[in-house]
């Protein structure tokens, strides 16, 4: 049972939770995988981990490597943290990153939108200067924060190799410079 302390929180994946166990095991290997429906007529990839295919209800699947680069679809920016673990990290960003993989499929408004915090390239929580640079449209790549054996959390950092928008869309009001 992978379990570890992370920012002062205890994170656990329970033994019976096979889908999350494998998802976080791949993350621990810093190799992002998602479930792909094994139905030949479907073959769609899904996020977050689940026990059947949201499109064809098929229960069989395979774990496949996924290119974890994408675009910020939306975000929240927390200035007043609720969980004690996050108080000293505020302001922090909760990013919803739409992967290039399977974007707009199987229908126009569907996509793999993967949550994560904004971190720097080392996986450290972003400071205010970095927060200020990121908004809707920013190009991101995945990085992993190691928690325990078999458990790492995926996060997002600016993709240095991608062309970034001149000014990503950000909430119009700044607070304390952010």
């Amino acid at each position: 049972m992978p379990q570890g302390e992370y920012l002062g929180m205890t994170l656990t994946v329970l033994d019976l939770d096979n889908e999350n166990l494998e998802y976080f095991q791949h993350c621990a290997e810093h190799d992002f995988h998602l479930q792909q429906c094994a139905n030949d007529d479907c073959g769609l990839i899904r996020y977050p981990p689940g026990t059947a295919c949201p499109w064809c209800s098929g229960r069989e699947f395979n774990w496949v490597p996924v290119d974890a680069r994408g675009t910020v679809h939306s975000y929240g920016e927390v200035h007043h943290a609720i969980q004690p673990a996050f108080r000293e990290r505020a302001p922090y960003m909760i990013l919803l990153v739409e992967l290039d993989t399977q974007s707009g499929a199987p229908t126009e408004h569907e996509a793999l939108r993967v949550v994560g915090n904004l971190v720097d390239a080392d996986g450290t929580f972003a400071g205010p200067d970095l927060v200020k640079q990121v908004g809707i449209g920013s190009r991101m790549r995945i990085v992993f924060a190691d928690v325990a054996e078999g458990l790492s959390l995926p996060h997002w950092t600016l993709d240095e190799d991608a062309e970034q928008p001149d000014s990503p869309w950000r909430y119009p009001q700044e607070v304390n410079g952010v």
Partner: protein
Amino acid sequence: MTTDIDATAGKYLRDKYAIIGVGETTYTRGSGKTTRALGTWAVKNAMDDAGIPASEIDGMMSYSGNDSTASTMLAGDLGIRLNFYMDVQGGGSSSEALIGLAIGAIEAGMCETVVVFRSMNGYSQVRIGGTGARASMPVGGDALHGAAYGWFSAGQNFSPTFMRHMYDYGTTPEQVAMVKVIHSEHAANNPKAYYKQRVTVEDVVNSRMICKPLHLLDCCVETDNATALIVTSVDKAYDYANTPARILGVAGRVCKPRIDMHFQHGPISTVAGYYIKDLIYRNAGLGPEDIQCTGAYDAFTFTSMLQLEDYGFCEKGEGGDYVSSGIMRLGGARPNNTSGGHLCEGYTHGMNMIIENVRQLRGEVDDYCPTDANGSKQHTFNYAEPSQGGGCRQVPDVEITQNLGWAMPGTGSSLIMRKG
């Protein structure tokens, strides 16, 4: 032929059930009472309001997030012998859903008259904003895709939806702030409201940032309170003290696709109301243009706006214009949350907004207007503050109201009532 029957059509129950009594405790912080004592207080007030004895109530339903008491305790305390009870898990959007299920229980012959209650110490015990003991709990399983990222409270969870609406449609903080401004005006005329102070757009956008795009004053109040209402069939409803609020249609916990994590299926700036409207207006036999007074759930300012937009009270994307136009104000064409709602009156997971609309339909809103010798309100329709000679919050000649309940962007409920 069974194929000739539209089995989904709640319209066969249109106008056959009613709310006959409503009750509440005071809206406080620090009730100094158990949820059992609060619940008993609210249910007794609803019984007194209807003039119904314990012997004529035989059903009870409630909802909670493991933060309340059970129907069995209140029924025992109040001497109600139950033929049916059900306490379910849930928060916002449960009130309307349980009213629908109460109708179903009565229709099935399981009982005749049902009390629905919600009792909570949402400030002094289990804080609705998520602070306190729950914020330090271990994180496991599916919550690893949420709480582990500091994506935990309602405001944090909803923020990508709210933010994307601003991006998609150019909605401004100042437009959305008008929801709080207007609800605060209504609360100023509500003797029960926890926050009676009127606020301005500047007050809202200059209040401290909680989670962009939510300032402190974009967020609801946390309070301790209980609320209750009584549902029965129309053939019994006229035996009691009040003009019944007759139920034209109800929708309960209608969901967007991929409700396990609804952000996977956009547009994420669209909320469950988009799906609810096709169900409830068909069943009620009317449309948004027929609604004279709304109770659009206001856990946050954005919550009211997004729902009003997706139910079709305005064009998609024009919610910012709608809520800042003044139409939602008392004296406007379609007032919203005339009690002040969750932003000002108190937090009850939707019950107080239904209670308010029941009173609106009776023409008996409990504002600062004088009461005549028969105990009836003499409404002035002067919506200025009490100190300015106003204090009224009755909508004139209101015949049809709608509640727009909200659990989260992906799930909502609704209730349409008419004056009996």
